């Protein structure tokens, strides 16, 4: 840094001199260096141009357009007029929209809590000395990398009302006498979709937390066990505090993905039975694309934002506040 600053200073001096004297070769180099350094605003702008143009056109502009659409009655193939808060008033009074809000919150809370618990457990297991460690770790992540829409089809078949392999096994074991209607009953459907979401999300949480676990120095555990700490105490007073910052980030992402989930529900139930599994994302798709009511769909999508922000802030600050426990600054 200091070198660069010094360079810049002599560069500037060299350039002044250059105007009066014929430039020496050495001065030339310095001058060109300084010109480049001075130009870094222009150069930065140039380098940012491709990414900036794409993001402005396909991210920032649509984001604003979405908010605007939410205040209009736009339909597919017909421009809309400004209707103020009408869409939001309608959605507020709409039983299906309120149900979808409940479903989304239920889905997010239950799935995230279980994903966190199982993911942390799996991470702790993977951090132990097990045979074929690298293979096991690679295999664990498979549910996360495979297209969700495609693995959801496998779950669809597993949850089939007539030929479900789960029902078959349970019947053979004599635990049930009738096949379970996994996706036909409202509460069964909610829990089944949550189970599929957990299946997909646990590997992500586990592998990220494992990366965090591996940065914890083993000497802490040695010191703790020499002081007579039980495994539970080691986990509670060494692992957990040191892991908190990474838990905060991982869970923020996990909540974000779960809250805005679309594929899984769309493939498994399309929001049915009786709208029992409609999330806000699937309902806004349903209203906007097949239903044609772009304005209403956009309003529904926009109303996810406050909840999303609240969820992010909660999981981020709720956990991040304990960063001091690391012994570092806040």
């Amino acid at each position, binding site marked *: 840094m200091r070198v660069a600053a010094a360079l810049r200073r002599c560069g500037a001096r060299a350039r002044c001199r250059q105007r009066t004297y014929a430039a020496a070769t050495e001065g030339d180099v310095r001058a060109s*260096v300084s010109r480049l350094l001075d130009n870094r605003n222009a150069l930065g702008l140039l380098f940012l141009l491709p990414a900036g143009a794409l*993001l402005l056109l396909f991210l920032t502009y*649509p984001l604003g357009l979405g908010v605007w659409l939410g205040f209009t009655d736009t339909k597919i193939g017909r421009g809309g007029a400004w209707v103020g808060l009408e869409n939001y008033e309608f959605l507020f009074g709409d039983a299906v929209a309120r149900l979808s809000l409940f479903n989304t919150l239920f889905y997010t809370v239950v799935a995230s809590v279980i994903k966190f618990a199982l993911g942390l457990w799996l991470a702790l297991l993977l951090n132990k000395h097990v045979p074929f460690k690298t293979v096991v770790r690679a295999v664990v992540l498979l549910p996360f990398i495979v297209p969700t829409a495609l693995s959801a089809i*496998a*779950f669809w078949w597993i949850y089939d009302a007539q030929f479900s392999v789960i029902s078959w096994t349970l019947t053979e074991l004599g635990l049930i006498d009738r096949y379970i209607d996994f996706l036909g009953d409202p509460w069964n459907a909610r829990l089944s979709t949550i189970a599929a979401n957990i299946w997909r999300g646990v590997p992500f949480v586990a592998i990220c937390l494992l990366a965090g676990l591996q940065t914890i120095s083993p000497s802490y555990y040695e010191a703790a066990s020499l002081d007579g700490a039980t495994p539970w105490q080691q986990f509670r007073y060494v692992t957990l505090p040191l892991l908190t910052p990474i838990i905060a980030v991982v869970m923020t992402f996990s909540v974000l993905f779960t809250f805005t989930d679309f594929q899984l529900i769309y493939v498994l139930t399309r929001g049915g039975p009786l709208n029992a599994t409609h999330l806000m994302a699937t309902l806004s798709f349903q209203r906007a694309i097949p239903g044609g009511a772009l304005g209403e769909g956009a309003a529904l999508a926009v109303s996810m934002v406050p909840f999303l922000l609240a969820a992010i802030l909660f999981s981020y600050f709720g956990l991040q506040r304990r960063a001091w426990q690391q012994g570092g600054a806040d």
Partner: protein
Amino acid sequence: MAKQTDDQVVDTQGMNYLVSLPRRVVTVYAPLAVFLFVLLFPFYWMGITTFKPNEELLSREGNPFWVVNPTLAHIKKLLFDTSYPDWLWNTMLVAVVSTFLSLVCSVLAAYAIERLRFRGSRYVGMSVFLAYLVPPSILFIPLAKVVFELGIFDTRLALILTYPTFLIPFCTWLLMGYFRSIPFELEECALIDGASRWQILTRIVLPLAVPGLISAGIFAFTLSWNEFIYALTFISSSEVKTVPVGVITELVEGDVYHWGALMAGALLGSLPVAILYSFFVEYYVAGMTGAVKE
């Protein structure tokens, strides 16, 4: 960083000799086996269903966990009677092009933000992170309007241009972290030797950031291979659909579910990413955890 953690992994086992074998079986191996079984079972089920003849699929007799008369009929139907090969090709094309496009944009942007340090670069860096948090399910409706007005509705170009909206923020964020780890001194030496910024980027920074580029590329590729909601919204003609959307919308006809063909479609659509992933596991994990850790 990676090296350091590897060393620590070996060391973590320091006190483990105190734990007896039966105890380890109950507390470690058994739960791990259950986890692995549950996580892998859907894939086994996909595979076994792909090779099952219809009589066995639609029968409650016999053991469903095994195939008696394996058949390739479902795969044959998929490859020759549907547009599945087209979907595979579309998915591949869209994923490769959008990944490449995003990588180019992200390298330039990340270098500018991290190293050129132009005025306001800190804010641009923050907004890249915020862009990373914008979920596609909020964007797809207005984006459909934009795509329609640009006249690229129902084309592959629509996907190639919209996928970078979630790829660029991610790749830029990841590459910023990699560029930060490259010492400033190297660039200063190059500057003194008269290299231009472009030469520094291509000859010094990029070769050093190859692992980061691979991580970002692999991750971006799988993300765009898995994308669903944009492809579902912006594409309506069968011949430009991607695999996930094609399988969901075209292989399901009315109330008759061709489970064999559906599972074959899911299996074949998952294989390319799974194979690619198996070659680059470490890079993939580094990409995923790197983005979270920053």
